[in-house]
């Protein structure tokens, strides 16, 4: 009868290159383990493949044509309407709401405050080492430091001796420890930075992906019939020092094959590094005995092209740019409640060759959208699902444009199991 907590994990630029989505190369044992106890949506799509518009869209439950944010330069409450957000709705329903890392895109698109105090009970946390992400911290072959795209690092060598996602995990665990004894339920959003560029990750993760095992995209050419307006010229990739040195012609010049392999290697290594952070966070949730009272939602703001159609990064309508992972763990519903002392999410080391691929617990093949996150999380937590938005809805503070996905959580075998609660 107690309210369920919510842990919302938002990853930056993560396409579904994960074991639980059928990727045979990528090592993501901790996310796979989460999926094994969850409902996984195979066909989930973002509403716009760029950070700020996508995040504002799914965090308000409205499409970009309603938030009127297509770039990075306006705050929806001023520019479009005073729309409620997911965390705001939970806060107004008695939850303690907390933000760690990149949840809202920072800057004017979230009022330079991550939409605080509307959305959050406390000022959002940002890791102190975030400020080095785009500085010259990547050791090049010349021994000098550069602002490269490919940036495997020795963590002991980087400023502050840590990386943003490590700090975010530590902060999130501290907040979970504090909330364990709280009388109020919590809504904790953790936004991880990787695998967003630059690929700045602990260098040991490269060893998981020897270059000789890295294939190119199956379709690395710009398709003949692609209208030029549809093509994304991946300008942010070109601006990195190591890519500039390749002297690639704009807009269609291809990246040399050897460098394409290195980009893919570093993307996958960044995903495995991210997986370890998710693993540490979920293991802590388990250790604190919060796994039986916490809904976990895992997703990404959009995907990322890895050379398909001669494109890199996001910024397009191709599926590789809009297709996202979407996974919900609901205690007692997507999996049985853990027994006393049982761990659902023990930390799994991606370097452990003995670890077996875990299949998703339950899957849906239906097409779904990130705008559905708002009504679905509200419904799963037992809150009233916001009503559908009228058209237009600029004057309506609380409504949702996405479908409520609750029907996907009705499992006949669970409903027939008299020993399961709920």
């Amino acid at each position, binding site marked *: 009868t107690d309210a369920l907590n919510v842990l919302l994990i938002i990853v930056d630029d993560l396409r579904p290159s994960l074991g639980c989505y059928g990727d045979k190369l990528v090592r993501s044992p901790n996310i796979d383990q989460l999926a094994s106890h969850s409902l996984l949506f195979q*066909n*989930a*799509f*973002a*509403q*716009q*493949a*760029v950070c700020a518009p996508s995040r504002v869209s799914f965090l308000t439950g409205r*499409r*970009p*044509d309603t938030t*009127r944010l*297509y*770039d*990075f*330069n*306006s705050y929806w409450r001023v520019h479009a309407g005073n729309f409620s957000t997911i965390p705001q709705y939970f806060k107004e329903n008695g939850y303690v709401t907390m933000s760690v890392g990149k949840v809202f895109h920072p800057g004017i698109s979230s009022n330079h405050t991550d939409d605080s105090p509307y959305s959050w009970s406390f000022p959002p946390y940002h890791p102190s080492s975030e400020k080095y992400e785009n500085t010259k911290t990547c050791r090049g072959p010349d021994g000098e430091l550069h602002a490269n795209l490919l940036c495997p690092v020795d963590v002991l060598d980087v400023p502050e001796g840590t990386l943003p996602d490590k700090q975010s995990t530590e902060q999130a665990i501290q907040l979970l420890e504090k909330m364990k004894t709280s009388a109020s339920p919590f809504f904790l959003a953790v936004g991880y930075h990787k695998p967003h560029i630059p690929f700045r990750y602990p260098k040991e993760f490269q060893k998981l992906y020897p270059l000789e095992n890295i294939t190119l995209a*199956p*379709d690395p050419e710009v*398709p003949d*019939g*692609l*209208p*030029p*307006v*549809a*093509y*994304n*010229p*991946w*300008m*942010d990739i070109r601006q990195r020092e190591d890519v500039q040195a390749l002297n690639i012609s*704009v*807009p*269609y010049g291809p990246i040399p094959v050897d460098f394409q392999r290195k980009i893919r290697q570093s993307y996958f290594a960044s995903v495995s590094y991210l997986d370890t952070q998710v693993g540490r966070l979920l293991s802590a949730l388990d250790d604190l005995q919060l796994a039986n009272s916490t809904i976990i939602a895992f997703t990404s703001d959009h995907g990322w092209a890895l050379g*398909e*159609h001669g494109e890199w*990064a996001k*910024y*397009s*309508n*191709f*599926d590789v740019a*809009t297709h996202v992972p979407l996974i919900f763990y609901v205690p007692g519903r997507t999996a049985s409640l853990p027994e006393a002392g049982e761990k659902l999410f023990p930390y799994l080391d991606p370097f452990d060759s003995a670890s077996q691929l875990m299949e998703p617990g339950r899957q849906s*093949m*239906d*097409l*779904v*959208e990130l705008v559905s996150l708002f009504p679905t999380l509200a419904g799963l937590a037992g809150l009233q699902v916001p009503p559908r938005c009228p058209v237009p809805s600029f004057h309506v503070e609380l409504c949702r444009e996405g*479908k409520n996905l609750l029907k996907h959580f009705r499992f006949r075998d669970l409903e027939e199991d008299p020993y399961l609660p709920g």
Partner: protein
Amino acid sequence: NPRELIAYSQYPRPSDIPQWNSDKPSLKDIKIMGYSIRTIDYRYTVWVGFNPDEFLANFSDIHAGELYFVDSDPLQDHNMYNDSQGGDLFQLLMP
């Protein structure tokens, strides 16, 4: 209801031809919006004129289109838009 099984996305562009800000155009520079509908069978996209002052798309000002069938072209490399009765299909499936 086929609309129950559709996912929508969109992306703005400043021009018909790729240029320095095609990836991340500022609102004032957006001239074209690419609206996509996805079903389990296909992705259909129309790139239409867009007025950034009024936030209005003009669906009679079509700059380009894309149509990819999931079964025969899962990687979306063969644009069938010009081979299709695309406009009719889009009108049918508009939200």
